[in-house]
């Protein structure tokens, strides 16, 4: 689905991603873990082609998309749940979700999208008309997730999607992941909770200081001492 080769990323003169290579198989669930500031979000932004300047190859289904503008990548089926939610505060919950189905590819699924999101996150249905900016933090995070799902992504990038969500909601959404995979959605997730995120994913990467230093089957990684080394700063 997605292959990245020799990717560098920089903000201005500061290079934060170094020689990244990564593969995500279609229909799989891949996690990237790493301490704060390792560059996980930057990697996500690179795949979307926003804010960060990149150098290197990014391929989607074999096609080189590294020079595509963001909207083209979105049209091609990549969607991201951004760090910090980034809702449209003065728009209602419903309109926010609707913006999720903005890509022309997704517009025809709008109805189904609403049904799906509302059944998954019934709270949002309740708050349909409320301006998103006045929701509680967790509610906003739900909208951000729902909005991404509205686009019917082929590749879904999740940047700390569970931040601020109550355990019950996290549980619900986690339990949904196999279903999404069954629908053919490929997932790439960044999460702080190493244990649970690696535990459920098919493959994992560990990022340190802007480089991917380990990869492997998630279970193996979890058990490896290297991982703990990274986190304990050894």
């Amino acid at each position, binding site marked *: 689905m997605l292959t990245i080769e020799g990717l560098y990323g920089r*903000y201005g*003169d*500061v290079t*934060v991603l170094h020689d990244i290579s990564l593969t995500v198989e279609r229909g799989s669930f891949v996690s990237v873990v790493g301490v704060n500031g390792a560059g996980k979000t930057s990697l996500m932004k690179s795949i979307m082609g926003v804010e960060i300047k990149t150098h290197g190859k990014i391929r989607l289904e074999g096609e080189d998309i590294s020079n595509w503008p963001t909207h083209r990548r979105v049209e091609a089926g990549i969607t991201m749940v951004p760090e910090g939610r980034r809702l449209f505060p003065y728009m209602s919950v419903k309109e926010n979700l609707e913006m999720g189905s903005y890509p022309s590819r997704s517009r025809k699924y709008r109805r189904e999208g609403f049904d799906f999101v509302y059944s998954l996150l019934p709270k949002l249905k309740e708050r349909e008309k409320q301006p998103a900016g006045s929701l509680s933090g967790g509610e906003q995070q739900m909208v951000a997730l729902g909005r991404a799902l509205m686009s019917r992504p082929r590749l879904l990038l999740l940047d700390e999607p569970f931040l601020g969500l109550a355990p019950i909601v996290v549980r619900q959404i986690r339990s949904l992941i196999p279903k999404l995979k069954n629908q053919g959605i490929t997932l790439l997730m960044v999460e702080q909770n190493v244990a649970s995120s690696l535990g459920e994913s098919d493959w994992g990467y560990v990022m340190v200081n802007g480089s991917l230093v380990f990869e492997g089957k998630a279970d193996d990684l979890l058990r490896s001492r290297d991982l703990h080394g990274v986190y304990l700063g050894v």
Partner: protein
Amino acid sequence: MDVKQEVRKLTPTVRPRIIGYGSVALLTVVLPFLLQSELYYLDTLILALLWASAAGAWNLAGGYGGLLSLGHAAFFGIGAYASSLMYVKLEVSPWIGMAAGAILAGVLGLVTGMVTLRMKGPFFALTTIAITEVLMIVAVNWSDLTNGSKGVNIPYHPGFSNIAFDSKIPYYFLALAICLIPFFIARWLERSRYGYELMAVRDNEAAAQALGIDSVRVKVGILVISSAITAVAGAFYAQYITVIEPYHEFSFAVSVQMVLITMIGGLGTKWGPIFGSLIVTGMDTFLRDVLVGAQGGVQALLYGLMLVLVVLFIPEGLIPWMKRRFRLKNGGVHNG
């Protein structure tokens, strides 16, 4: 205190600085005497200093306080009117008028601050414009006090106590002194508790409040300071130009002048208004010199184009732009 450390601190950085500042100071002192035969350029310089003072005063509220007022002409006008009316009608020395104007403007600043507390961005800006317009209407219609739209014409009686001089040199030094007031206040803001509180409120009011900062006091305070100094500049303006009228003194154009100069120089920097004013006034003078006799409008057109170019190439303003360049040149790879 570790003496060695102190010494180390002094030697490498402070000395070139003292030399730098010293030569700038020396230049500013001798400059008017050098220009005595080029009085027109001295005049240009005085106007530049005048606008630098007004812009500097605006910058305290607009740049450091984030209160983007588009109505500072209100305070400028009050200063101009207070000093000249007191002089013309009551024969009070404009020095006293200047102080009175500053106090009056400070009070208006206080009221403006209180009234606009909850307003953000454009709402605040528009309210300040509205207040200026209101003052203009009052100045036009309250003709018993203000001479109405005729304005006030200040008779020329040279003398220190009248702030009227035969030579331009005293005007120069007075303008310089006024221009230094906001400069030193800005300098103080950059290293004082109040300044930090102000910048914190500017950047995020709620977060500042959570840290125990009284955002009302801080915001209103800077507005009072800024308006009082703006009024001093206004009073100087009246004495120098000798004619004031409501349509100009309370005009949007005057407010915008302060904003533009500051933005060109660099918002929230102490040198910004001074450099901005030197550039804007210098550019203006230069264009008029080059375009003598050209059709009206050509000069203004080029001035407008200059603003656009500034936006395209140095939108953050001159001083921050120079700082950035300087830092990069010095190989300062600022670490991420």
